[in-house]
């Protein structure tokens, strides 16, 4: 049987990048929005 490890690694690495990018983008967006809203409310930002 042939060795397909290169294809398998590429598929899982791509999935990790796509899922990681989605998580980072959503979390960063949330933090940015909370910061901007806190400025309006004049509140302290929760970590």
């Amino acid at each position, binding site marked *: 049987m042939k060795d397909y490890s290169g294809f*398998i690694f590429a598929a899982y690495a791509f999935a990790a990048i796509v899922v990681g990018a*989605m998580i980072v983008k959503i979390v960063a967006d949330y933090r940015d929005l909370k910061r901007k*809203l806190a400025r309006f409310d004049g509140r302290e930002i929760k970590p």
Partner: protein
Amino acid sequence: MLKYANPTHFLALAARLIPWLAATTALLLIAGLYLTFFVAPDDYQQGSSVKIMYLHVPSAWLAMMCYVIMTSAALGTIVWRHPLADAAQKAAAPLGAAFTLLCLVTGSLWGKPMWGTWWVWDARLTSVLVLFLIYLGLIGLWRTIEEPAQAARAAAILTLVGVVNIPIIKFSVDWWNTLHQPASVFKLGGPAIAGSMLWPLLIMAVGFTFLFFTLHLMAIRNEILRRRLRRLSIDAAHAEEQAEATA
């Protein structure tokens, strides 16, 4: 249930649910990956390349499921004009695009060693590519129209038109001769896949589904906050204008 359709109540519910959903997602994906790499056997024909199936199939299911969720939200926008339906629809589009891209790329990486080609213009592959383009079109539409309510209605109409592609994707392998294999899990007469491969696949699929719901909930929360920020910015600008006018 209707109580949670109120954005403020929804934010409170999301804050409670997100940590639990994220933890369940992590556990399911760890279990799924363990079963994929250490328990599930190689295929007698495809060898170890079948490991790609455990990513490809869940992403394909989610690519379609996300669109079905967007279609329900689009109905909520058009029929009830509910702001939460708008937010759910807008938040789902980038996730759907990401899972469709993942499905296309992992399919290509599986297709090359098995079919000898990265891509063929067969009905299944082409209809999934069309789904990806619809997602991109919807993201573009949301970004182009500044007024959220107007953008929501336009996106809802496009979503409802595009839903015709979902049965085409599902049944393309039955309606036309395709290089892509026919359904092997959800089919009449039960799954045509061995239990030792089916269970890891189902656990990965449930893990991916939890991942989607976690990210969707987080993205809806962001969308509600973005609208709140927009309203506050507009109010502040009006207040400033009035102050200048009275001065």
